[in-house]
């Protein structure tokens, strides 16, 4: 009886201790709040994955990676009917629009586009060299929808998870990269 009581009190104290914000965290939150409500609202609304990436400086320890990947994979939604390759023309619009995909910030795509970033892989001729097989479609779809399901804490943001495009629109982006008629593939080599 007595032992149980001690255990309960001990657990309560432990819980209380763990729920307290450390002094550094409290100071950081104060600094962020100093920037105003809009800034603080977004900065302090980190999800679990963002918080882990921050904590480990974008390099997750190996033992955390399997769970991280599984949790990110579970966030991927697929188009109704399961068609992973849509209309490349619609995909091109989303890929290009700075407020949607904004993919040219980091990647090349259409060889005619000169204002492209060099951070991510060069995507010119992506489909021409890889084909349109089911495994390729699935891989591209999943990376486009949630890159963190493959590359934990990578710079590439989770476009589908964060609502920048719907599953159907993600399939359009897949088509822009894989469809032989897409400008990405038409002019390669």
């Amino acid at each position, binding site marked *: 009886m007595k032992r149980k009581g001690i255990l309960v009190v001990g657990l309560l104290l432990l819980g209380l201790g763990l729920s307290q914000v450390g002094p550094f965290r409290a100071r950081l939150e104060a600094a962020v709040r100093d920037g105003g409500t809009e800034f603080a609202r977004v900065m302090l609304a980190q999800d679990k994955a963002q918080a882990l990436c*921050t904590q480990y400086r974008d390099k997750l320890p190996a033992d955390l990676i399997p769970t991280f990947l599984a949790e990110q994979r579970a966030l991927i939604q697929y188009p109704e009917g399961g068609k992973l390759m849509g209309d490349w023309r619609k995909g091109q619009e989303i890929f290009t629009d700075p407020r949607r995909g904004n993919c040219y910030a980091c990647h090349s795509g259409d060889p005619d586009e000169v204002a492209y970033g060099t951070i991510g892989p060069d995507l010119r001729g992506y489909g021409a060299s890889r084909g349109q097989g089911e495994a390729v479609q699935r891989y591209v779809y999943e990376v486009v929808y949630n890159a963190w399901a493959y590359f934990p804490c990578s710079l590439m943001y989770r476009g589908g998870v964060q609502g920048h495009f719907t599953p159907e629109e993600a399939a359009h982006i897949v088509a822009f990269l894989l469809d032989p008629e897409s400008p990405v593939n038409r002019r390669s080599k």
Partner: protein
Amino acid sequence: MKRIYHLLGLSLVALGALFAYTQGQKPLDPFEEAMRQRQMYLETFGVLPGELYVEEGKELFYRKGPSGKTLEACDFGKGPGVLEGAYAQLPKYFPDSKRVEDLETRIYTCMQTVQGYKPQEIKRDEVRAITAYVASFSSKARMQVVPKHPAELAMYNLGRELWYWRAGNRDMNCASCHDRYAGRRVRLSPLRSPSQGLGSEWPAYRFEADKLYTMQDRIAFCYESIGIPKPAYYSESYIALTVYILAEATKAGHSFEELPFFTR
């Protein structure tokens, strides 16, 4: 008056740049492009836009506030009225305000405590111009941001945490671009890490925006482009990030550019 004259000319320059851009077969090198634009300005007007901001800032610096004082009575870290090299060692801790301040925040503070302005009377554009004026005394100066005071060390640590803080619907932070992909390009903009001298060009005139950007303006622009609303000016996030960035650049031995710089 000078401003209108320079705005008129700017539309011509901008048209030319757009033409050059659309005709270009390969991506333009942003640094070369900025230097070409700078040269065009010098040849067309005989003066750089940054110099006009400096002139405006000088007038505001010597304008008497409600207290009757000018900003000569403000201590920018090397004693009241000493401007030579002052910018190169900011942000730092100021015992009078009991906080770590960057140049912009220091100007904002002194306009209130020394000159007697109310916060709502202080125009952001005036602070920008005064920043350009004071920073011009640290043109090409070696950076000297070395956190020593406990408050400066605390700001450095906060800045480092913010540097890695992933947030917003683009899942980003500063490090995942600036550290990991230093030397590569976002669209056409080159990325630099703090140890490569990030921050050395501000305040600068950005010809693409036709505006003077201070360090805070540039950080605000970064936040907005990664889907995070910009913090209120003069707030701690700017100061913390600036301490972190410039302390790292100082460790690597960097100097400021010609200030105000001319950039895209």
